């Protein structure tokens, strides 16, 4: 009972965090802020996937969570490398 409410609260918090990231992404003052907003969005989406799978009892969502986490990190690295050096793989 209390666990259901806590899970709903956590899902609501991460969904609201995702909306705040979207606002930041739309109104970002620079390129680095946009990359940071997208990076935070992938982190929040990963948390949402894991919490939703805990709620629905599915066991296949953790691969999706791990894939989201890894592609988010690699894309942030690639963006930063491009902005720093002008190319991703030198």
């Amino acid at each position, binding site marked *: 009972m209390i666990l259901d409410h806590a899970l709903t609260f*956590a899902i*609501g918090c991460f969904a609201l965090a995702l909306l705040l990231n979207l606002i930041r992404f739309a109104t970002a*003052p620079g390129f680095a*802020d946009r990359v940071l907003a997208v990076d935070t969005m992938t982190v929040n989406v*990963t948390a949402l996937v894991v919490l939703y799978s805990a709620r629905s009892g599915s066991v296949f969502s953790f691969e999706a969570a791990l894939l989201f*986490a890894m592609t988010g990190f690699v894309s942030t*690295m690639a963006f930063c490398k491009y*902005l720093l050096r002008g190319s991703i793989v030198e």
Partner: protein
Amino acid sequence: MTALAEITVAVLLVAGGLFGLIGSYGLLRLKDRMQRLHAPTKATTLGVGTALVAVAFHIWLTEDRFAFREILVAVFFFATAPLSALFLAKVHLFRDIPRDSLPPTGTGSTWATLTPDPPGGKS
């Protein structure tokens, strides 16, 4: 599942959600870009890690198996968040800060982010 374990998982979930929300709110509200870097890379990582640990604990209590994959995702976040923060700080240093306003390095050479080729040749 005992009531104590249930309350522990619930508290971890609520704390994780609050930390994630605070991280994203800080990303929206803080003024300087270097300050904005702190909120998602620390608070959000802590919040997501707490939520993942809560889910893993819940699986361990109800299904009696150790949830390797959730812990793996949490460890991955804790390992990669500092790297993202470091590289975004390097991008900020490289693009937005005037070169003559940087403090001296004290080593004779300039900041490693600003050198055309990193020490030891091309990377």
